[in-house]
């Protein structure tokens, strides 16, 4: 029991001068003043807890909002992407029409900071959170992916963080029964103290099943269901409870939440069953800021009025204070708004799935969110001021003074391989470098088969899921984000991230439709990091408009910074594509001898931020490759047409590591070699290692060659025949030959040696 008197609204009115720990809770003085001004009195402890957490950077986007607006303002207004948008930014996840009455929702989020503190649970609950966002839209989750960034592969702390993160993703996702179909693993010393653990989830529903988070209808009941509320994941509130009100309390509980994937699996089934029985008016998952967020957002999105009896919330720990209950981030909980005559049926479904469910409040006809504790009012606020009308900052930003010097440090000066033997050594070193090495040691810890609709999974260019077994309709998703490029030029880096992700989706034969993004940056209080953020937003918004792929939602993660050292600006861009018949998909593997290898696109001398410059010289400088989005669009058209008309047997995006790395991957995947000829007029090193954009490799059956090259010529896409699938080595004529067995040892041995 709490020893202090309950800080009710009445008590707050009577004791206007009581000092509250607003600074410890992360509020700025002017923010606290604004809370007082909104309420016309000092907040109660519970109200302060709600405002502090809902106005945090994480929940309010107060530093990023002014830049994120561009995604809406510049959103494409025509084309397939714009026409497909059903629900845009602002909801828990965006929703896209994929045809045949189906809609797809997808979103990527970060769980960076918790995953550094506690890798297993941090990564596990990252999956849990994004999955609940998808369920809350009314969709059945069908796949997850994880874009990951770690510190240097050889660093001892990476050996702590990576295995924990991977085990957490596997432990949670496998037990939840969602196939993990892709993602990325990138190493760079800049992520040493700030690993990035992003998680993406895709869900599918019929158009009529789309649900939004709102509490409409006076008298409707608010049902909290799922796990009981415990003391885990209480950030600010434990400061509030322990330092102000009750110094006698036991020590603070863990700030990182603990996940229970079994409970989450039940939550999925139970929620979808309730949706299909048409028992739900509005729904919201409990993630960051727990009940504070769910109640204020539900009320704010509805008519505005809601009453909650906080003492009805089922607890794991009966000693929790009301402030802690409001703040708890215990996982696997959801909140539904249900009409009174449907409550019994809703509770029956919860009982069937053995999910605890409790009516904790109801929608009122007022415009106040009122929360009671043992009959006394401890919160009385306008929910919009908590959920949507938080502070907005125009943070100062400035191009860092080192940017010019960085861009002037051109990789053209670096020594290059001068003969066949040196090219061979460089190709092997690249294929075996941690970033380019096979990640199967990691991805084999994830279930890619469950649900039985996985058509493509890692290491393919994009993951692909069948969503209708009758027609073969499917979706493809890829994520990309090259922090090295973005460091050299954040505007161009964001465009390149979209370009690569878009290309990866098209390479498998799917038509790119929409974008989700996870923007991982340093501190917004550092003008240099803020400039990177502003530039990346501008770049991504421009690029989305040019490619006709609207941003449907996403997430911002700031403060990825240890002391002065910020991470590379890392905009991770996820692209969703649709394919009419997954049987037409194009895989990456060279499978049949005799197929002709074509390189599509133009190769220029572009080594800024390249994998070669990193592996061979530990160098980062110059300018990143140029993003040519018109070219990307054309390339995508060709890849999609070739897939649909069966003109290519394999396609693989050319990106990090250039043509030689792409060739190595396609050869190893299919277990077939290739004989390659350096095209006339190209320097062998530039041909093999440059990272010029807008390129892909394809394997064309001889019977389709004329049709394919005619199509490329007619549409104006350069297509160079560079060789043939053949033998058991990757041979670049006149330069070197790499037996596949040797290549495989290098490519597949690195990660197990480091982490196995």
């Amino acid at each position, binding site marked *: 029991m709490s020893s202090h008197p309950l800080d009710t609204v009445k008590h707050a009115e009577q004791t206007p001068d009581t000092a509250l720990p607003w600074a410890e809770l992360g509020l700025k003085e002017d923010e606290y003043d604004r809370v007082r001004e909104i309420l016309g009195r000092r907040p109660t402890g519970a109200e302060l807890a709600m405002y502090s957490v809902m106005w945090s950077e994480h929940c309010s986007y107060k530093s990023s909002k002014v830049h994120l607006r561009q995604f809406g303002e510049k959103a494409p207004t025509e084309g397939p992407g714009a026409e497909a948008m059903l629900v845009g930014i602002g909801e828990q996840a965006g929703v896209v029409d994929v045809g045949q009455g189906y809609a797809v929702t997808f979103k990527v989020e970060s769980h960076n900071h918790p995953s550094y503190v506690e890798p297993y649970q941090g990564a596990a609950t990252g999956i849990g959170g994004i999955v609940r966002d998808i369920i809350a839209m009314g969709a059945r989750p069908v796949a997850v992916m994880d874009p990951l960034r770690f510190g240097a592969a050889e660093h001892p702390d990476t050996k702590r963080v990576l295995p924990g993160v991977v*085990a957490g993703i*596997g*432990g949670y996702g*496998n*037990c*939840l*029964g969602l196939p993990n179909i892709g993602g990325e693993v990138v190493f760079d010393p800049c992520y040493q103290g700030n690993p990035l653990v992003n998680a993406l989830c895709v869900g599918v529903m019929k158009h009529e099943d789309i649900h939004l988070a709102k509490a409409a209808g006076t008298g409707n009941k608010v049902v909290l269901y799922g796990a009981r509320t415990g003391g885990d994941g209480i950030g600010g509130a434990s400061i509030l409870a322990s330092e102000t009100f009750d110094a006698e309390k036991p020590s603070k509980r863990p700030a990182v939440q603990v996940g*229970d*994937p*079994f*409970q989450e*699996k*039940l939550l999925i089934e139970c929620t979808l069953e309730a949706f299909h029985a048409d028992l739900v008016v509005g729904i919201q998952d409990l993630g960051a800021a727990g009940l504070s967020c769910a109640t204020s957002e539900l009320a704010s999105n509805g008519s505005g009025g809601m009453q909650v009896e906080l003492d009805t919330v089922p607890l794991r720990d009966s000693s929790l204070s009301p402030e802690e209950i409001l703040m708890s981030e215990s996982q696997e909980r959801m909140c539904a708004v249900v009409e009174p005559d449907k409550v019994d049926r809703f509770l029956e479904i919860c009982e069937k*799935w*053995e999910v605890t469910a409790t009516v904790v409040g109801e929608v009122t006809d007022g415009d106040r969110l009122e929360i009671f504790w043992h009959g006394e009012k401890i919160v009385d606020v306008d929910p919009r001021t908590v959920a949507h009308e938080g502070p907005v900052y125009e943070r100062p930003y400035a191009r860092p003074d080192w940017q010019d010097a960085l861009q002037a440090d051109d990789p053209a000066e670096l020594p290059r391989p001068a003969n066949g033997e040196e090219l061979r050594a460089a190709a092997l070193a690249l294929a075996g470098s941690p970033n380019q090495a096979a990640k199967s040691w990691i*991805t*084999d*810890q*994830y*279930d*890619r*088969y*469950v*649900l*039985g*609709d*996985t*058509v493509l999974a890692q290491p393919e260019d994009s993951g692909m899921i*069948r969503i209708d*077994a009758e027609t073969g309709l499917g979706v493809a998703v890829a994520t990309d984000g090259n922090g090295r490029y973005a460091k050299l030029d954040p505007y161009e880096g964001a465009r390149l991230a979209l370009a690569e992700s878009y290309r990866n989706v098209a390479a498998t034969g799917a038509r790119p439709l929409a974008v989700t993004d996870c923007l991982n940056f340093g501190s917004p209080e550092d003008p240099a990091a803020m400039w990177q953020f502003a530039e990346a937003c501008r770049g991504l918004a421009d690029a989305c408009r040019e490619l006709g792929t609207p941003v449907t939602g996403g997430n911002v993660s700031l403060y990825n910074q240890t002391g002065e050292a910020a991470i590379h600006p890392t905009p991770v861009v996820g692209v969703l594509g649709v394919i009419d018949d*997954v*049987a037409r998909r194009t895989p990456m593997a060279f499978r049949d001898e005799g197929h002709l290898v074509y390189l599509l696109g133009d190769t220029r001398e572009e080594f800024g931020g390249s994998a070669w410059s990193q592996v061979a010289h530990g160098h980062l400088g110059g300018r990143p490759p140029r993003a040519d989005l018109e070219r990307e669009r054309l390339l995508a058209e060709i890849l999609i047409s070739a897939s649909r008309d069966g003109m290519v047997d394999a396609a693989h995006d050319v990106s990090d590591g250039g043509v030689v790395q792409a060739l190595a991957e396609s050869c190893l995947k299919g277990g077939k070699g290739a004989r390659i000829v350096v095209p006339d007029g190209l320097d062998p090193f530039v041909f093999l290692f440059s990272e010029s954009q807008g390129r892909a490799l394809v394997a064309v059956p001889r019977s389709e060659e004329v049709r394919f090259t005619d199509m490329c010529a007619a549409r104006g896409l350069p297509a160079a025949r560079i060789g043939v699938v053949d033998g058991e080595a990757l041979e670049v004529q006149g330069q070197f030959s790499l037996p596949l067995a040797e290549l495989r040892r290098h490519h597949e041995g690195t990660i197990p040696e480091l982490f196995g």
Partner: protein
Amino acid sequence: MTTRIGVVTFPGSLDDSDARRAVRIAGAEPVALWHRDGDLRRQQVDAVVLPGGFSYGDYLRCGAIARFSPIMEAVVEQAKAGMPVLGICNGFQVLCETHLLPGALTRNDHLHFVCRDQRLRVENAETVWTADYAGGQEIVVPLKNGEGGYVADERTLDELEGEGRVVVRYLGGNPNGSRRDIAGITNGAGNVVGLMPHPEHAVEALTGPTTDGLGFFTSALKKLVAS
């Protein structure tokens, strides 16, 4: 009359819809069975599949709680009377917990979850669930588990070997430390089979590495139709 093959859903079952799909592709009628409903007769099922997943989260010990569900009482009774029962992955673990099959499944020796396309040899092609294969036939089906190491005492292992009750064996490297590379076993009568690999994920060329897994389901169907 069509052959009805039931697939049990426990809380935490994950590959139940996949098992139902495999049953359908094999030509039988899949029947969803709920763990609380122990009335198998009313459901009129001719065989039962216990699917993969993490029943009850598998927090205590894999399959340890599922064995106490009402439906398992009925499954055990029917299995003893000769009804074909196939346990896949978590289902195999449940069958061991109920003692329909001997031994137990323990944490993989390398301590990681493993998901891979696994080569297997069909050692016994005479069970209800493997009659469509040739003895010694090599197949490839997905394997995905964290606790797939098959263990039993030496005498039991010798008995299994001696009686030809090892149904499938791992080839090309033991993926989890199973004793004697055992991937699946059967009871003495050959109607109850449990295995860690997932034949239901190898029934379509589009989504599986092969279609080698379909034989498990067509085998049972043929036996049932013939009887």
